[in-house]
């Protein structure tokens, strides 16, 4: 390659990178576990920028006092977790779309280009704006046809946590992944400042094991539950510092389900909804926050106990991946009796679930292509038998340098383990005690 061609190539490659950057795109696989969010005080009053685990923030450029952004609605290929890819729809090459982060009072101009095979619109969920910008197809605007670019321009007059999503054929478009979060920082923040600010969009999908297309027609039996469109073990952990003040903003654009998100190892207070801030006097400690469909919930907490803490939807089927529900309970059956009959016909058959499903992740049974086991991610003590809407809050003393992939090193004697027989005897514990 001569120098001239090298320069041309460099310009072209650089241009592509810039274009991707301008859209908040990232190539699939380029993203790694979220490094701890740097304490960038980039918003008024020292507010830090939000972090979208497994996601990005929409780049905005400012011109004549207006912040300008570009959303491209488009078909995408999305990896929910290693081994499970989907043919989805999203914005700027991803689902959820890039997080829009602005400040109260910002005038914005969002260009929306439709590269979907059908029309779309964008509704700015929870944002109070001029009626013609609200994005409801047929009511507030005509649809954005395939290939068209529309422009939305309005001012964010209220701080808070909001969402955006289509309001044309939303059943299909949202089921396929078209949604994103909006964070509007207050011009004059109140209360103690936070050190970390995360956004997590909860969602639910139906993807048949072996299929690639989420099923928009599904109404009840969702089998892939996600934070920011990732199912455990695909979810990035949230790394925070002990004693730091942490904010997590949840959104829920699931089709049918609310999500009670439960935290281990801490209590939090609900500080806001998409309706606004909750007065300090009305806040109270919780360990589980219910995020209803079509709502946002903001919580804040200060973790004081270091460790790797589970954080998950408490609906037990929402922490399973691609769980099927059309089969009989196998618990308690004698697997050998069934195997003896069936394996004569099907040598590859093995009765499963007869002793519960806790060890399913370690059975290593072959499953259909493009599907993932119901549960299972690597943990420091073995497989973590969770899936779906599950992630890990990693509370560290040194969050800015901690390895997001690393596990908490427990002080000696602080991990539950097999009981010592002498201790049991001394404490009067009889493991063979009979009841009933």
């Amino acid at each position, binding site marked *: 390659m001569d120098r001239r061609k090298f320069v041309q190539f460099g310009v072209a490659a650089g241009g592509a990178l810039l274009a991707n950057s301008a859209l908040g795109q990232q190539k699939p696989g380029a993203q790694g576990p979220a490094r701890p969010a740097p304490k960038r005080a980039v918003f008024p009053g020292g507010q830090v920028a939000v972090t979208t685990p497994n996601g990005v923030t929409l780049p905005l450029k400012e011109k004549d006092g207006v912040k300008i952004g570009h959303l491209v609605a488009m078909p995408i290929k999305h990896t929910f977790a290693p081994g499970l890819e989907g043919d989805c729809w999203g914005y700027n090459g991803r689902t959820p779309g890039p997080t829009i982060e602005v400040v109260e009072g910002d005038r914005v101009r969002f260009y929306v280009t439709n590269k979907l095979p059908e029309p779309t619109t964008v509704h700015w969920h929870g944002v109070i704006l001029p009626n013609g910008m609200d994005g409801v197809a047929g009511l507030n605007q005509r649809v954005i046809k395939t290939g068209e670019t529309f422009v939305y321009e309005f001012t964010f007059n209220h701080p808070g946590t909001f969402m955006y999503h289509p309001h044309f054929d939303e059943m299909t478009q949202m089921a396929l992944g078209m949604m994103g979060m909006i964070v509007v920082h207050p011009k004059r923040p109140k209360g103690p400042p936070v050190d970390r600010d995360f956004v997590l969009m909860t969602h639910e999908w139906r993807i048949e094991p*072996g299929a690639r297309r989420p099923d928009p027609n599904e109404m009840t039996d969702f089998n892939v539950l996600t934070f920011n469109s990732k199912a455990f073990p695909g979810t990035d952990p949230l790394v925070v510092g002990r004693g730091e003040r942490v904010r997590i903003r949840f959104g829920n654009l699931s089709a049918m389900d609310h999500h009670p998100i439960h935290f281990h190892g801490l209590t939090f207070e609900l500080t806001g909804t998409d309706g606004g801030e909750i007065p300090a006097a009305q806040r109270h400690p919780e360990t589980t926050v219910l995020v209803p469909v079509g709502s946002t919930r903001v919580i804040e907490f200060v973790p004081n106990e270091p460790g790797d803490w589970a954080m998950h939807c408490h609906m037990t089927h929402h922490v399973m991946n691609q769980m099927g529900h059309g089969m009989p309970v196998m618990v308690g059956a004698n697997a050998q*009796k069934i195997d003896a009959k069936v394996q004569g016909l099907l040598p590859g*058959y093995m009765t499963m*679930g007869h002793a519960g499903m806790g060890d399913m992740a370690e059975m290593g049974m*072959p*499953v259909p292509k493009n599907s993932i086991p119901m549960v299972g991610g690597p943990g420091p003590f073995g497989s973590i038998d969770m899936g779906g809407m599950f992630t890990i809050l990693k509370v560290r003393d040194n969050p800015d340098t901690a390895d997001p992939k690393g596990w908490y090193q427990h002080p000696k004697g602080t991990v539950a383990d097999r009981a010592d027989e002498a201790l049991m005897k001394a404490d009067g514990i009889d493991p063979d005690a009979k009841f009933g």
Partner: protein
Amino acid sequence: MKTTPFFSFSALALLFGLSAGCASSTLATDVREVDDVFKARNRRDLAVSVPDEEDWEKTAAEVPKLLAKPLDADAAVRIALAHNRDLRAAFYEIGIARGQFVQAGLLPNPEIEFELRRSTDPAQPLQADIGLEYDISALLLIPLRKGVAEAELSAERLRVAGEVLDTAYRARTAFYTVQARRQELDLRARALTAFQAGYAAAEELNRAGNIPDVDLATQRAAVESARIDVAEAENLLLDARESLNATLGLSGEQTRWTVEAPLADPSTEALPTEQLEKRAVEASFELAELEARMQVSSRRVGLARTEGNLPHLSGGFHGEHDGFSWELGGHVTVGLPVFNRNQGRVISARSELGAQRERYAATATALRATVRSALNRVESTGRRAQHYRQVVLPAREKALAETLLQYNAMQVSVFQVLDSQRQVTQTGMAYVETLLAYWNARAALDQIIAGRHRGLGLGPAGASGTSMPSGGGGSAEAVH
């Protein structure tokens, strides 16, 4: 008065001798002539050996040898040709026609009349009359009658040659049916095993309190219905064996033959489709027989006309002895064909000829249609069988493998896995039925090209003839 005998004694002795010689069995000749027909067509595999009359109860030597090994279709044909008693009877029936031919060529016998008379007048001497009468018309008509009988003999020979083909065809298709029914039984048994596995799983799950009694009962019903399917399949196999036994002429210990090979996959050899209709018409024993029958009718017309128009002629000599001397003389009797000139027989014979001419044309049309139908059936069943083997069965196997993966992914139950397995079995049954239809069609096409198109069991087009294992339909749904 000197008398001169009309026939010498030696001449009479010769005639009697000739008659005696013609009375022996012509079976060997008849068999050889039919074999010669097939030799001329380069079908030595259809040679038939029929034992002499004195050995008629004995089994042909090659039959035990063929029965000692697992049968194949060719061996079944050989046994049938050597041992089928109906076929042997057919060869004897050629003898009937041959006898009629011989009879038609025999000279009419002279009639001699003696008469003695005594007068009531004692003075009158005893009178003796002697007369000899000979049917000259019958003598003159011998060539014509012989011609008719010869044509009938020829037609009969062709009919029996056709029966040889029929016997071989029946043996071959009966053998194919045995193969198919044997495979069906194996597959039905496999389906039963799948139902039994489902029932075992249901029993365990019911015992563990995981499924209700209704699901267990449904699985039980499926198992028991599948048992019926197996029993029916066993019966069908027995029927098929007995059908083959009858065709091969076997009984007693001879019926313990075995079959090992399954129906072969469709032949990859190109079909001999060139000028197939023309070849079939040229080879057709049915048309050849009809042609011979037309010849018979045509000759009957000639015979009837000649008989009708020819004055009845007879002649003879007469001698009368009046006690003193002989009076010798001759006479000729001529019947005048004034009223009865065989008009009725001529009409019948002509009508018979006309009917056969039309039947010939109809048979030729039917033959051509059957050729096309059989060729279409061979091609159609062959393609379907290939499709089953190369596409449907692998697809079912793939579906089963994927169902097992779905089971591993906890998406489906063991009952659905077993249901998918039964689908493989069911497809196997459909494949076997299609193969049977293919080989039957192939045998039918070969039969037509060999010269026979009637009585072919092509069966209904496109019917696989299989049914789902009895318990299959609702079992998977019954348990989740």
